[in-house]
């Protein structure tokens, strides 16, 4: 008996000892075509290879979208996939200093406004629209109304907050419901319904809905934090080169990406046509250092502020400031909460990872 205890203790100690000096980090992701590669990255061993190179341990965990954000804000995970809008109104607005390390893609048609009976934006006043409120769906909807000259009617549309898990059957099976805003793959599913047309999509506002990997800034300053960011970035661009390449490597990457959401490779291919992936560090760098990024982010932060997403007592969008790669700050200099950091992407571009 005593021997057994000693043996098992010894086993536990031996098993733990090598891992103990390696700092460990957790990445949370949720199902979306631009984030599914994190699942493949983990399962294929690509991430492990990079993590070993940089002497860190990286765990990857799938969440539903909203809980992943909550886990990130509560600091139970170190890195998380989210859009630029949620990065601003969840962690950044809650005072959790956040750094965007990887710019993965922007939605180029993945999010869409769909209607029945050939409805148009100017006829939506007084009608019901189903969507997940206070998310990019509402942002997209208001951009659509604004760009179609119906901005003053936004307040007269009745928004019905509908959970994304039920929005497709709820819209398809109720002919009385006339408009819905959601994202792929739900959009593809809804579009198959009879008499349903797309009147607006994120392809008309390219670069406004960005899909990022963010890391808490204090994690980057922890021992091994920099190495963690380097390892993830390296693994990400390796997956990207597979996805943009040809041959069996591409097929394998597509299959792995599809498996993440129990989807088919064909469906993933279809979704990728409306996703502007930044396949190379160069393309990502180009967008991150452009003046365009600041303009788009300004639209997003003003939306967040006018919808009370930055918090009740916030006096203006400047209270949650954004730092850009060129050192420019959007908002109050002493209240920087969201940082776009290109240093890791740049290392990838220079082949120094």
């Amino acid at each position, binding site marked *: 008996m005593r021997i057994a205890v000693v043996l098992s203790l010894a086993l536990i100690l031996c098993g733990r000892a090598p891992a103990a000096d390696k700092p460990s980090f957790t990445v949370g992701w949720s199902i979306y075509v631009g984030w599914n590669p994190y699942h493949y990255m983990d399962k294929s061993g690509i991430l492990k290879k990079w993590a070993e190179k940089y002497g860190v341990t990286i765990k990857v965990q799938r969440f539903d979208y909203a809980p992943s954000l909550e886990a990130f804000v509560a600091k139970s995970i170190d890195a998380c996939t989210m859009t630029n809008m949620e990065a601003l109104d*969840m962690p950044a*607005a809650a005072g*959790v200093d956040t750094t965007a390390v990887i710019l993965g893609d922007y939605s180029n048609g993945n999010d869409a406004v769909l209607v029945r009976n050939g409805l148009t934006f100017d006829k939506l006043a007084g009608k019901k629209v189903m969507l997940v409120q206070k998310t990019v769906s509402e942002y997209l909807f208001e951009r659509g109304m604004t760009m179609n000259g119906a901005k003053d009617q936004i307040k007269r549309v009745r928004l019905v*907050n509908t959970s994304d898990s039920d929005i497709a059957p709820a819209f398809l099976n109720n002919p*009385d419901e006339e408009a819905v805003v959601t994202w792929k793959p739900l959009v593809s599913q809804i579009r198959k319904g009879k008499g349903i047309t797309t009147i607006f999509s994120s392809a008309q506002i390219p670069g406004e809905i960005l899909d990022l990997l963010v890391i808490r800034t204090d994690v980057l300053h922890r021992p091994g934090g920099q190495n963690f960011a380097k390892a993830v970035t390296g693994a990400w661009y390796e997956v990207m080169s597979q996805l943009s390449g040809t041959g069996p490597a591409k097929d394998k990457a597509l299959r792995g990406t599809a498996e993440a959401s129990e989807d088919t490779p064909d469906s993933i291919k279809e979704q990728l046509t409306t996703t502007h992936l930044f396949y190379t560090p160069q393309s990502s760098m180009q967008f991150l250092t452009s003046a365009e990024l600041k303009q788009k982010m300004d639209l997003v932060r003003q939306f967040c502020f006018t919808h009370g997403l930055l918090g009740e007592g916030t006096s203006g969008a400047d209270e949650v400031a954004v730092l850009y790669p060129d050192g420019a700050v959007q908002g109050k200099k002493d209240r920087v909460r969201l940082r776009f950091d290109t240093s890791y992407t740049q290392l990838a571009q220079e082949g120094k990872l």
Partner: protein
Amino acid sequence: MSVWKINTAPGRNMTWFLSWFLFASGITLYVYTAHKRHVENPDDKVVPTLRQLTGGFYNAAFKPEADDEAGAGLWQRVRGSMLWHDTMASGRRFLISFALLFPAAVLGLHIGVFPYVGAFFMRFILFFDKIIALSVLPILFIAFGIDELSKIMLIVIGVTPTIILDACNLSKGVPKEQIVKGFTLGAGNFDIAYLVMLKQIFPRILNSIRINLKSVALFLFAGEMIASDDGLAYRIALLRRHMGMDTIIPYVLWVALLLFLVDLTMRFLNRRLHPWFREI
């Protein structure tokens, strides 16, 4: 120590102290955590301070949603507020579903009393009771739309089978001798069902409904979180989207208070209506 003595009760002061102890320690722990987190991060939204909580409650309960009513009196401000609006919307759904539980109890009585009715319904309801209402939501949406009706049906499907089965069991528990005696005294079948059986089990039925209030609230919240444009759970779902804990926590406490009050009222009514009933 008299802690482990069955026959020793604590004195008045001790009872007071013991019964509030967990509340006090809970609040203290909360205030401490909130303070600690705000020292680390002044913008923390996960655990708001007491001042933020009262601020959140004030904004929800006394600030009109539409700006043009800002200068109105207190009562008008309350009537125009978010909390009032949401409470009315959820309260209406709650009361309709609550009212529907009574016919369910009567059905249960019939199943228990009349063998033919029992043969017709019993097996089906036993089966129906085991269906997890939340898992058939898409079917509910197809059948009842996404408006009020589907929310009320979700509650009905979720809670009524329990009530029906419970009422049925209760009516079966009435001693057979009473039925025989009723017949020999010249009562008809319906006299026995309503005047002998329903009358005795009614306080227990009320009790059973009272205990199931929480299930009603649970299904109501699930329905509102899935699709709606007003209601208490709708607001909580929206506020979650940007960590509005300073309003969510007062909302949760408000719902707890409302449920407590409904429960208390039912207990009071039950005691008033059935002074002979002593099982509560």
